[in-house]
């Protein structure tokens, strides 16, 4: 369990369940009273049932964290440190996917010692999650040691892969290292559909087959594009066949080698996909933060602006294989800083991103979903990073009172 002091709030994260919570005001008082007096109440029962307060807790440690809260300086529109860090272990990958947004990078692997130094910083700052990616992380020598470094530091560790190189032995070793979740990238239920945007169909299926026979939680990353969106129902069936925990719907973002407009969902395709999402039960459907427009149009104002919308520089950041910092994997600019906390708290680039709503371009500026969406910065960066999304299929103009 990680307990972190934020400005006027306590954050709790359970790495084993993936639940993050934020308490302030009366709820924080109730927790504090319980920790001091041991007198239970219904709210404490609830925290326990949500796995946010284990039965065996270090009360003194939590109280010490709560005591620090008044001294925490608020960061505008953000937490004081990231909830999660996306960390590229390598730029190398044996596949040459048509939609790869990292193509053309020189081959590089983050050295384990450098990785350990970053994880020490993250642990000290009380970052909750480390999401490992690449390149193809499964091919990184000593991958298990990278995972162990994260999990022994008490954080959640997840990994995204094409499935290339996953063997029964490696999977067992990753489980032993307490990897929390593995996500396999697959864009089609058939090789023909998958191959228009991704390579490695057989490897992905082989990985899913292996995963379906053991206990590690896993899911499928599916990028919605014009050449595969109609295949979504079959993808759901495939995911259910392999007992995947989720399908994560990723928004297609610009890449150098493809013409963006050709593959980005049209209004019609977006609406069709939205209708499909309402049909499926029995599997968790997730969306990436760039797809917040899909979430908003599904639930209108029901979304929570803390947990929804572009989280680049607000909830997460990226460290590439060279150890450089940036707000999101899809943004080009990188920054070199002394450490991740300094970057998170002092970077001019991140400060600007957090003020985005104040000067974002149209149509986002007049959209009723602005605060729970904020548009995808990687898509807008084709014009400029603070532009509005001109072809957003979910645009809903704010009512003028």
């Amino acid at each position, binding site marked *: 369990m990680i307990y972190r002091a934020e400005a006027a709030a306590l954050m709790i994260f359970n790495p084993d369940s993936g639940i993050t919570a934020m308490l302030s005001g009366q709820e924080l008082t109730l927790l504090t009273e319980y920790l001091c007096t041991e007198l239970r109440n219904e709210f404490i029962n609830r925290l326990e049932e949500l796995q946010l307060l284990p039965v065996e807790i270090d009360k003194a440690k939590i109280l010490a964290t709560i005591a620090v809260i008044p001294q925490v300086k608020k960061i505008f529109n953000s937490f004081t440190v990231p909830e999660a860090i996306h960390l590229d272990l390598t730029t190398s990958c044996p596949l040459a996917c048509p939609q790869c947004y990292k193509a053309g990078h020189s081959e590089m692997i983050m050295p384990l010692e450098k990785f350990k130094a970053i994880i020490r910083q993250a642990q000290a700052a009380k970052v909750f999650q480390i999401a490992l990616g690449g390149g193809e992380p499964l091919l990184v020598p000593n991958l298990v040691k990278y995972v162990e470094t994260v999990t022994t530091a008490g954080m959640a560790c997840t990994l995204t892969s094409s499935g290339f190189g996953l063997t029964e032995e490696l999977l067992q070793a990753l489980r032993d290292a307490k990897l929390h979740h593995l996500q396999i990238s697959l864009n089609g239920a058939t090789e023909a559909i998958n191959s228009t945007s991704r390579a490695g169909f057989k490897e992905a299926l082989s990985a899913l087959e292996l995963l379906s026979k053991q206990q590690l939680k896993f899911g499928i990353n599916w990028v919605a594009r014009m050449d595969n969106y109609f295949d979504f129902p079959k993808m759901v069936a495939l995911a259910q066949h392999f007992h995947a925990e989720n399908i994560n719907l*990723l928004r297609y973002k610009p890449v150098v080698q493809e013409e963006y407009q050709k593959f980005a969902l049209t209004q019609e395709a977006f609406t069709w996909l939205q209708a499909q999402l309402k049909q499926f039960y029995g599997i968790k459907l997730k969306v990436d933060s760039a797809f917040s427009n899909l979430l908003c149009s599904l639930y209108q104002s029901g979304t929570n602006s803390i947990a929804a919308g572009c989280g680049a520089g607000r909830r997460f950041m990226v460290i590439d294989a060279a150890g450089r910092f940036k707000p999101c994997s899809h943004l080009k600019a990188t920054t070199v800083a002394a450490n991740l906390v300094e970057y998170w708290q002092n970077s001019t680039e991140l400060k600007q991103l957090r003020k985005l709503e104040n000067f974002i371009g149209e149509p986002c500026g007049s959209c009723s979903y602005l605060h729970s969406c904020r548009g995808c910065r990687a898509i807008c960066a084709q014009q400029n990073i603070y532009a509005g999304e001109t072809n957003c299929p979910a645009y809903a103009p704010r009512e003028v009172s």
Partner: protein
Amino acid sequence: MFTYWQGYEIDGSSTAYNLIVPTRELALEVLRYFLALKIIDREAEIWLSFSKVNDPNKCQKKNFSYAASGEIDDFFLNPELNYFQLDVSCVHPKRLYPQVREELFQLTKTRPGREESSLQYKNPTISPFYAPNLEVSLEIYLGKPDVVIDDYQTEGLIFNEAVLLKNLSQPHFTIELVCGPAFIYEYAAYINTKLAARFPEIGIDGGIDCAGGFVAGCTYASNLYDYERITINTTAIATTIKDLLQQELLQFQKPSGKYGREFAACENLVLYYLDHAADWDELNLEGKEQIIKGILAGKQEFTPEEYQALVEKITTITLFNKVDFMHYTTCALKVGQQPAALTCSNEAGQICLEILVKPELREEFEQQLRLANIIVPEG
């Protein structure tokens, strides 16, 4: 404030979260907790009514057993859901676990004008002549958030008031708990109190009804303290009834008047809920009613011996729970000048004769019973 979300960072490029948004997850958490409350009847069916955003006027219905209530989650999480209503029944006061019953009695202290009530009774119960309506509905419109209310005036029983006002001042969803006029105040207070303690981030307006704004005959007309139960230790039911009659401690009564709400003296015991059973329309009878009608075989009045035989026969019907048993064996009486009732309870196969009297008569009536050598447990 308390908010939470579940999910791992699972993609190397950006964060991800469930399609189900926190607002709806919180409402689902409330729904699950509501269903798990100890006053919700696990033996009764749960009825679900819902409509979808694209066809809000078309209401669909579905029923679930309590054991299958987890299936309701799928309905609730569907983004197409516009309106959602869940109808459940609460446990009859006679079937409550003692600990829950005690908790309910303690809640009487929160009712304006009734603060001392719970202290004055030994074994209170609801009226034997008035069936409580124990159904309660949980309703929510999810299509669009409710409009902002900036100048809300609270009145009545309010929980988490600051949060209530804050939530109302921004787009919000309202979960409405609806109960009928014959619901029980303590049950409503129990639901409100438990939800308020569990969910400090939710404001609850219990309304003026909960604060004593209405009187009996309107909201919360069923009263946990209408009668006192006096249990008589005897296996010889018929003999004891005859003794009571002989010593003029009670008189038999039967329903009379245009609506059957008045009483008239009679020679034999008349089953209060069954005096017209012979006229019941077979086509509309449920299982339990069919069985009891069959047992009666057209008979309406019973001597004490016949009554004892009937009670023993009903004991063998496993379909009847303890509330059914008391319901069907209830006969109207008069004790002093007040209405009273005679009934039998069945606790694990042990039949007990019970006299239900108005609370103000209890002490005197118990003394009279003891003087007549009829054993009444102390306390």
